[in-house]
């Protein structure tokens, strides 16, 4: 196990910067998820750690040693590919044992070790099959077994669960979480599924257009998203963002928007600064912090009902404020919600997130 470090790493394809001046530190034993939308540079970053892509500039360190230009074979890392990359002409035993073969281990020993790992992953009875003769979930576990069969400094995963169906994915996710607790491996895990990242990571790097927007623990990212982009990306459903007009009234912050009533919020220096730049702010509210408003509630959003979806333990209630500015509430009840055509959603002031006109989080009082 070892740490991983990026120092001002940039990767350009022609004019286009897939990864732009990225720096971060991953400590020994951390499980870091690179999270972001398609094309934001997650795979490119991972491939640079593996040595399959060379940075255009910057440095990469693994375990404190510079590896920027080192061949993949000399980095002692393991990687699980999105398409699994199982060798079609080798049976599972040879597939899993391949890393040991190139390390010069004798056949009997490496097959024994492969069987050991395969047994843990519950594919030990399939060792004679070819990859084309096993199911997708078994292929996924085979590729995992091949990565785990030798001790590596860092384990890299490129969306290893994306080809699995929903149920298998949950199962594999749980297994990976268990494995991480068990082995304490240093891992970098690429995904665009925020739930996967939240569940697995000790820290999440949220990426957008080649930049890291926020690098923090899942809880921190959930509680204090650094930008509207992160807020909108993490959470299921994502945070509601409402454009509001802000003004200082009687030493308090008053927010104005269609259908919104809200009591004055405490002013801070940060809010004051954002207001002088522009009166336009963004109000963020997580769906799970919204409910059907009690009569006489102060903090509310009122708008025509758009959708009312019952999901079993919870209901998603969406109202439409016009111009597709929708607000969704996640209401934890297994009862059917009887709603009128116009719905008033309520929230409490402590759950309010504020972002300035550039989309940057305005720290709440005491942050």
């Amino acid at each position, binding site marked *: 196990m070892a740490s991983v470090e990026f120092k001002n790493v940039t990767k350009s394809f022609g004019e286009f910067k897939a990864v732009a001046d990225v720096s971060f530190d991953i400590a020994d034993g951390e499980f870091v998820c690179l999270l972001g939308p398609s094309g934001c540079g997650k795979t490119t970053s991972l491939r640079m750690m593996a040595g*399959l892509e060379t940075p255009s500039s910057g440095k990469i360190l693994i375990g404190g040693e510079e590896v920027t230009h080192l061949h993949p074979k000399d980095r002692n890392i393991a990687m699980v590919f999105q398409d699994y*990359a199982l060798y079609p002409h080798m049976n599972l035993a040879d597939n899993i044992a391949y890393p040991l073969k*190139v390390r010069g281990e004798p056949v009997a020993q490496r097959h024994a070790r492969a069987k050991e790992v395969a047994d843990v992953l519950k594919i030990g009875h399939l060792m004679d099959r070819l990859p084309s003769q096993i199911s997708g979930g078994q292929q996924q576990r085979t590729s995992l077994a091949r990565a785990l069969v030798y001790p590596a400094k860092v384990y890299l995963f490129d969306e290893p669960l994306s080809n699995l169906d929903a149920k298998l994915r949950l199962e594999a996710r749980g297994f990976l979480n268990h494995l991480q607790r068990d082995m304490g491996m240093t891992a970098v895990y690429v995904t665009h599924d925020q739930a996967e990242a939240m569940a697995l990571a000790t820290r999440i790097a949220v990426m957008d257009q080649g930049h890291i927007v926020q690098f923090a623990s899942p809880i921190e990212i959930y509680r204090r998203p650094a930008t509207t982009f992160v807020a909108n990306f993490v959470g299921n459903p994502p945070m509601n963002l409402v454009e509001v007009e802000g003004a200082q009234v009687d030493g308090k912050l008053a927010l104005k928007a269609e259908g919104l009533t809200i009591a004055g919020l405490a002013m801070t220096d940060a809010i004051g600064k954002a207001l002088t730049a522009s009166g336009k702010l963004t109000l963020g509210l997580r769906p799970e912090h919204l409910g059907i408003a009690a009569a006489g509630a102060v903090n509310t959003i009122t708008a025509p009902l758009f959708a009312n979806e019952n999901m079993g333990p919870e209901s998603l209630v969406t109202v439409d404020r016009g111009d597709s500015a929708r607000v969704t509430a996640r209401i934890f009840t297994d009862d059917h919600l009887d709603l009128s055509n116009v719905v008033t959603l309520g929230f409490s002031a402590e759950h309010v997130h504020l972002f300035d006109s550039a989309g940057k989080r305005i720290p709440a009082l005491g942050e």
Partner: protein
Amino acid sequence: MKLTIPAFVGRIAFSALAALIGAIFALPLLWFLFAPFNARAELGLALPDPWTLNNFVTVFGNSYAVQALWNSFIQAVGGVILVGAAATLAAYALSRSSIPGKGAVTYILLLFSSVVSGSAAMVPIFLIVSAAGLMDTHLAVILTFAGGLLPTAMFILRDFIDSIPKSYEESAMVAGASPVQAFFDVALPVIRPGIVVVVVWGFVNIWGSFLIPFILLRSDSNMPASVAIYSFYSEAGTPIVTLLAAYSLIYSLPVIALYLFVSWKFGFRFFGGIKA
């Protein structure tokens, strides 16, 4: 399903036409199968009466004809090994490396390949081979064919390799393999069906070609079967049909055997990418 009367008549007419065309193509093939076993074979189609192997005995008694088959074999196998090995390595490099303009290189080579083994280039080829002192050697024939077939073989193989995910070799290298190891352990076995196609195609091409060996070779002892067939003519220039037929059958057997072997062993199936 019920057929209407016109549709039914139409089908019968179509089947009859198809049968007729089939028969026209089958006739020469039947002659090809019957004539070698007929002691009095002529250009007309006739059932052998009696069936005999005398024609073959005569052919095998002709040392020039037997030597020619062996020469064909040397030239075809030599050419195929050269083409197969060179095309695999070149196509792999073209497919996997990021040389700028590699697409253009392949297309230009492809364009010239039809020239090299074509009759237009015969004079320059003759001059080059003769200047290299390779006149009347197997090597001259092998090299000329290799040059002519290589671009197309590269083109076929590059397409084939392009369709194989890079992640095979990448996962091997991450696992600790050198590029050479990754090539032999992982890439080559996956490319093999493509190589087989190229090898069969190259073999058939060299085995059946007449012009190049005819021009580049002098002595009878070096001539391949495609040229030797012309020895079964009488002084007057009329073909000795019995021997010609027997020799042709022998001459075509290796190619048929190769196809059967390959389709038995590989089934002409490709297993390129895995199901995602």
